[in-house]
C-alpha cells in the first residue's frame, strides 16, 4: 500500500515536471511541444509566474515526505489523504477560477497581469496530476479505515464517481447556471417568469385555436406515444407468445430494427410516403380528387414516426413480461373454472401491470428525448428537444433560452425516471422462480386474438413498407417525380475514383470518422459499464444506492440536453474539449454507459457469488479475482455491451449534432444536413449503408457471442445443477 501511494505520487510529480500542464495548440497528445522547447510544463509555468501551480508541487512533495517518514500505516494514510485532498481541491479551484474570459469569482481578490491573462484548458500534465492524486486519495482511504480495505475496489469507485461527476453532473450544472444568467451577472428572479412562461407551459390550445407551449406539446406527444407503443407492443407480445402465429421469426426481426435504425430515418420514409409528393398522398389525391395535405409535417407525422420507431422497444420489454406470467397461475385459474377471457382479465393482465407501466414510461421518455423525427417532420409542431436545438443554432443564438428549455425537458424526463424507480422499483410481481415451471400458457380467447391480429399485423406490414421505402428510395432519381433506377446517390456518397485511388464520395469522411469514433467508444463504454456493474453487484460500500442512481441518471437525460450542456461546459477552460474527437467519444461513453451497466448487472447476477468468495478465501485479491474468475466467465456480456455501444454510437444524433466539427463530422449529422438541403436520395442511400454496416457488425459479434455462449453456459449450468 505504501508502495502504491508512493508510485502514484511519483507519477504525478513526474507529470508535473515534464508534461505540458495546459492543452497545447496542436492537441492533447501532440508531441510538438518537446521540439519547440516551450517551457509549458507545470513546473516551468510556475516558475514563469503562474504561482497558482505551487499547491500541486507542494502536495506531491508533502505526500512523498509523509510516505517516507511516518511508520504507522493508518496515521500515514490519514495524513496523505488530507494533504492530497486539499491539493486536488486547490488544483480544481484554480482551474475553475483563473480562466481567460467571462465572469470570474473573487475578481476583487485576484488581480495581476498573469491572472488577468488567464490560462488555456488543462492538458495532459494536469490530467495525469489529477488522476494520480485521485488514486493517492483512494489508496489512502483504503488504508485508513479499519485495517486493510481493498485499494483496487476503492480506486475503481473513485474513478467512476469522478468521471460521472465531471462528464454528467458538471455539464448539467452548467445548464442550471446558464438558466440563471442575465446580462452581466446572475439573477434568481428572472428565472421563474421565464421558466413558467406561456411559450413553454401555455395551455391555450385547449380553449381556442391557438398553439400550446412547447413543453405541453412534448408532454402530450409523449403520453400519446407511450400509450400507443405500449398497446401495440402488447398486441405483438401476445401474438408472439400466446398464439400459433406462423411468422414469429419475422416479428423477432422487428426487435432488432430500431437498434440499427438512425432515429430520423423513419421520419424520412414517412415523408416519401405521405409528404406532399409522397406516393400515398398522390395516389389518394388522384383517387379522391383532393388537394394533397401537409398533415405529415405536424403532430400526426411525428406521432406516427415515433410509434413506428418505439413500438419495437415496447415489444421487447413486454415480451419478457408476458412470458414471465407463470403458466401454472393461468392453469390454476382455468382449473378453478375461469374461461380464457376471465383468466386473461383477472390473472394475467394484473400480473403484467408493472411491465405495462414500465413499457409506457420507456415510450414516454424515448418520445421526449426523440430529436430526429421532430427535426425532420415537426415543422408544424414544436417540441422541446428541437426547440433547444434551434435556440442554439438558430438565427438568434440564445443559450439562456436553450438552458431554460433544457431544464423543462430534464424536469419531465427525470420525473418519469423517478416515478419508474420509486413506484416500479419496489413492487415486484415477478413470477419466475427457481422452480421449474412446466405448464403451458393459456392461449388467447378468439375476440382478443382477433383484436391483436387486427392491430399488430397491419402495423407490421406498414413497418415493412417503411423499410423497403428506405432501400427503394435510395435507388430512384428523384422521389415522387422521377422513379427511374439509378446508382447516382451511392456514387455521390461513396464513390471511389479508381484512377487516382481517392475516395471521392462526399460521405467517406464522416463515415470513417463515425466508424473510428464508435470503435474507440465501444470498448471504453463496455469497460466503464461493466466495472460499474461489478461494483454494484459484488461490492458493498457506503453510498451504493446514490452511486447506482447517478450512473443510471444519464439514461434519463435526453441527448439534446447532454449536447447543449457539453458545449456550455467544455467550450472553455479548465476542460476545453469542443471541436475535438475526444468530446464525441466521451459523450458516447457516458450516454451509453447505463446500458452496459444493466447488461453487466444481469450477467453478473447469474454468476454465483460463491465463485468470487471462493477465490477470495483462497487468497486472491479483488483484482486477481476479476481478472481470473469473473472476466473469463463474462464473455457474452462483454460482447453484448460492445455491440450495443458500437451501434448506439453510430445511430445517435441528438447529442452529437451539437458537438461535431468540420474536422470531425459524424454520419448522422451529415445525413441530417443533407435532409435539410432536401437531398433525400443521398440521405437515404447513406442511411441504408449505415444500416447494412451495423447489421454486419452485429452479425459478426453475434457469431462470436453465440459460439462462446454455448460452451460457457453448458459448463456453468452443470456445475450449478450438480
Amino acid at each position, binding site marked *: 500500500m505504501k508502495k502504491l501511494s508512493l508510485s502514484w505520487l511519483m507519477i504525478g510529480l513526474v507529470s508535473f515536471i515534464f508534461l505540458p500542464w495546459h492543452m497545447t495548440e496542436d492537441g492533447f497528445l501532440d508531441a510538438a511541444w518537446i521540439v519547440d522547447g516551450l517551457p509549458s510544463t507545470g513546473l516551468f509555468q510556475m516558475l514563469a509566474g503562474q504561482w497558482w501551480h505551487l499547491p500541486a508541487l507542494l502536495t506531491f512533495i508533502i505526500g512523498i515526505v509523509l510516505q517516507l517518514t511516518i511508520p504507522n500505516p493508518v496515521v500515514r494514510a490519514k495524513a496523505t489523504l488530507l494533504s492530497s485532498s486539499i491539493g486536488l481541491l486547490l488544483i480544481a479551484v484554480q482551474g475553475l477560477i483563473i480562466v481567460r474570459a467571462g465572469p470570474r469569482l473573487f475578481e476583487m481578490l485576484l488581480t495581476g497581469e498573469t491572472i488577468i491573462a488567464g490560462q488555456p484548458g488543462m492538458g495532459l500534465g494536469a490530467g495525469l496530476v489529477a488522476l494520480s492524486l485521485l488514486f493517492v486519495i483512494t489508496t489512502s482511504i483504503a488504508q485508513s479505515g*479499519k*485495517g*486493510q*480495505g*481493498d485499494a483496487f475496489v476503492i480506486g475503481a469507485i473513485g474513478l467512476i464517481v469522478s468521471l460521472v461527476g465531471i462528464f454528467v453532473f458538471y455539464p448539467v450544472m452548467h445548464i442550471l447556471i446558464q438558466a440563471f444568467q442575465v446580462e452581466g451577472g446572475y439573477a434568481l428572479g428572472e428565472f421563474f417568469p421565464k421558466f413558467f412562461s406561456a411559450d413553454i407551459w401555455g395551455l391555450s390550445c385547449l380553449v381556442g385555436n391557438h398553439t400550446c407551449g412547447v413543453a405541453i406539446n412534448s408532454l402530450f406527444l409523449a403520453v400519446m406515444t407511450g400509450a400507443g407503443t405500449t398497446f401495440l407492443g402488447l398486441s405483438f407480445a401476445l401474438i408472439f407468445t400466446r398464439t400459433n402465429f406462423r411468422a414469429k421469426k419475422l416479428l423477432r426481426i422487428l426487435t432488432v430494427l430500431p437498434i440499427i435504425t438512425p432515429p430520423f430515418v423513419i421520419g424520412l420514409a414517412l415523408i416519401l410516403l405521405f409528404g406532399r409528393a409522397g406516393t400515398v398522398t398522390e395516389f389518394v389525391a388522384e383517387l379522391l380528387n383532393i388537394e394533397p395535405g401537409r398533415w405529415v409535417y405536424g403532430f400526426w407525422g411525428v406521432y406516427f414516426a415515433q410509434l413506428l420507431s418505439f413500438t419495437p422497444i415496447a415489444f421487447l420489454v413486454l415480451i419478457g413480461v408476458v412470458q414471465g406470467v407463470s403458466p401454472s397461475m393461468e392453469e390454476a385459474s382455468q382449473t378453478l373454472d375461469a374461461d380464457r377471457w376471465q383468466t386473461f382479465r383477472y390473472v394475467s393482465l394484473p400480473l403484467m401491470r408493472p411491465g405495462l407501466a414500465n413499457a409506457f414510461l420507456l415510450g414516454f421518455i424515448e418520445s421526449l428525448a426523440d430529436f430526429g423525427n421532430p427535426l425532420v417532420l415537426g415543422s408544424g409542431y414544436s417540441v422541446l428537444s428541437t426547440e433547444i436545438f434551434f435556440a442554439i443554432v438558430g438565427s438568434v443564438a440564445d443559450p439562456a433560452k436553450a438552458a431554460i428549455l433544457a431544464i423543462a425537458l430534464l424536469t419531465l424526463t427525470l420525473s418519469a425516471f423517478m416515478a419508474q424507480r420509486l413506484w416500479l422499483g419496489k413492487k415486484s410481481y415477478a413470477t419466475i422462480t427457481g422452480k421449474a415451471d412446466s405448464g403451458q400458457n393459456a392461449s388467447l380467447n378468439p375476440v382478443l386474438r382477433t383484436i391483436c391480429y387486427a392491430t399488430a399485423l397491419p402495423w407490421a406490414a406498414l413497418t415493412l413498407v417503411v423499410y423497403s421505402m428506405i432501400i427503394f428510395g435510395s435507388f430512384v432519381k428523384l422521389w415522387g417525380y422521377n422513379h427511374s433506377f439509378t446508382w447516382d446517390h451511392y456514387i455521390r456518397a461513396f464513390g471511389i475514383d479508381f484512377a487516382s485511388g481517392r475516395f471521392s464520395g462526399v460521405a467517406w469522411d464522416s463515415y470513417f470518422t463515425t466508424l473510428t469514433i464508435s470503435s474507440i467508444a465501444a470498448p471504453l463504454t463496455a469497460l466503464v459499464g461493466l466495472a460499474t456493474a461489478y461494483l454494484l453487484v459484488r461490492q458493498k460500500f457506503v453510498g451504493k444506492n446514490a452511486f447506482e442512481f447517478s450512473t443510471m441518471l444519464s439514461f434519463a437525460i435526453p441527448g439534446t440536453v447532454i449536447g447543449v450542456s457539453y458545449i456550455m461546459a467544455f467550450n472553455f477552460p479548465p476542460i476545453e474539449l469542443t471541436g475535438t474527437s475526444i468530446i464525441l467519444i466521451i459523450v458516447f461513453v457516458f450516454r451509453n454507459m447505463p446500458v452496459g451497466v444493466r447488461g453487466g448487472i444481469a450477467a453478473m447476477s447469474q454468476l*454465483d457469488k*460463491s*465463485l468470487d*468468495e*471462493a*477465490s*477470495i*478465501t*483462497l*487468497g*486472491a*485479491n479483488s483484482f*486477481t479475482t476479476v481478472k*481470473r*474468475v469473473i472476466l*473469463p*466467465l463474462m464473455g457474452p456480456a462483454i460482447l453484448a455491451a460492445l455491440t450495443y455501444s458500437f451501434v448506439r454510437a453510430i445511430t445517435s444524433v441528438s447529442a452529437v449534432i451539437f458537438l461535431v466539427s468540420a474536422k470531425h463530422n459524424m454520419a448522422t449529422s451529415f445525413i441530417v444536413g443533407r435532409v435539410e438541403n432536401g437531398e433525400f436520395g443521398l440521405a437515404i442511400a447513406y442511411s441504408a449503408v449505415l444500416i447494412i454496416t451495423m447489421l454486419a457488425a452485429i452479425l459478426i459479434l453475434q457469431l462470436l457471442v453465440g459460439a462462446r455462449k454455448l460452451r*460457457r453456459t*453448458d*459448463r*456453468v449450468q*452443470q*456445475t*450449478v445443477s*450438480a
Partner: protein
Amino acid sequence: MTNTTIGSVRFDNVVKKYGAVTALKKLDLSVEPGKLVTLLGPSGCGKTTTLRLIAGLEMATEGSIHIGGEDVTHLTATYRKVSMVFQSYALFPHMTVRENVAYGLTVKSVPKAEAAEKAENGLELVGLKGFGDRLPSELSGGQQQRVAVARAIVLEPEVLLLDEPLSNLDAKLRRHVREEIRQIQQRLGLTAVYVTHDQEEAMAVSDNIIVMRNAEIAQQGSPHDLYEKPNSEFIADFIGDANLAPCEISNYAKDEATIVLNDKKLKVPYAGTQTGAAKLVLRPHHLKLAEPSKQGFEGEITYAAYLGKEIQYTIDTEMGELFVVSSVVSNPFAIGNRVSVQWDNAHTRLVTS
C-alpha cells in the same frame, strides 16, 4: 505464538449487524486446534454468518476475532489463513480440476511446478488422482465436492471452513462423503468449522457441536452431552425427537427432583436448582406401550405408521399427545386401542424454560 494456538479460533463479544438487523448478539466462541466443531441450528440462526466472519467474508460490527492466536478482526478474507468449502462448491467452471486445486497456490505466486505437485497430492488425498485434466462439469456431484475439499486443503489452512458441504448430494452419498471429510480432517489434524442444519449430520462428524438459535448460542458440547443433557426445551426438541410434557418441580435434592405430572408424583434425575413449571423430556424410543394398567399413563392410539424396523404411534393421553417409536413390530396396536404409556424415569430429563 505457541504451537497450541495454531489453528485455534476465538470470538470475543462479536456482534454483527446488518443495518438495524442483528445477525449475531455478543458471541463468545472458541474452537480448539485439531477439532471439528459444528455450528448447528435452524435457518436464520446466525450460523452461516459466524462462518463467514471466521472466513473474513463479513466483518464484525463489534468485538474481536483471533485465529491461531493472532488478531484478524480487521483482515479481509484474502489475508486470512483459512479456506472454505462452499455449499455450491464454487468450482471455477472455466478451469480444469487441476487449475482449480492449484488456484490458491498460483495467486500466491508459488512456482508452477511446486503448485502442480501440491495440487496432484491434494487430488490424491481425496481419491481423484488422474482427474486433473477434466473440467468440473465432467465430474459427478460427489467428485466435485471432493475437488472443492482438495482445493481448500492444499493451501494448508489454519482453519478449514465447510458451509453445508453435503446439502447438494443425495442421501446415500451424503453419509459416505461425510465420513471421508471426517477422516481427512483427522488424518491431517486440521481445525475445522462445519455448518449444517441437519442434526444427524452434526452428531456424526463433530467433536463438538455449537447449537445456535436467534443469533446466539443455545448450547454447546459433545454430541452425547447435547442429546442426553439438553439445557432447554429448544435443544431437547432440536437434537433428536422429544415429547415435552409440562410438569411442576415441587422440590429437589442432590441429582434428583420430585415433580408433579398430571397429579402423579415422580422422582426424576435433575441437576438444577429451580422449582416450578418445567418440561419433562421423553424420548420417543424410551416410551413403552402396554395393555392398560394402573402403571404409566393411559391413552388412545390416534395414528400408527408401519416403517418396517419400527412402528410410530401418536397417542392421545391426559398429558397431551405423545409420539412413540416402538421396535415391537410383530404384534402392533391398532388405531383406537387404549394403551398404557410407561418409561424408566432414569431416561428422562427435566428442562426449565
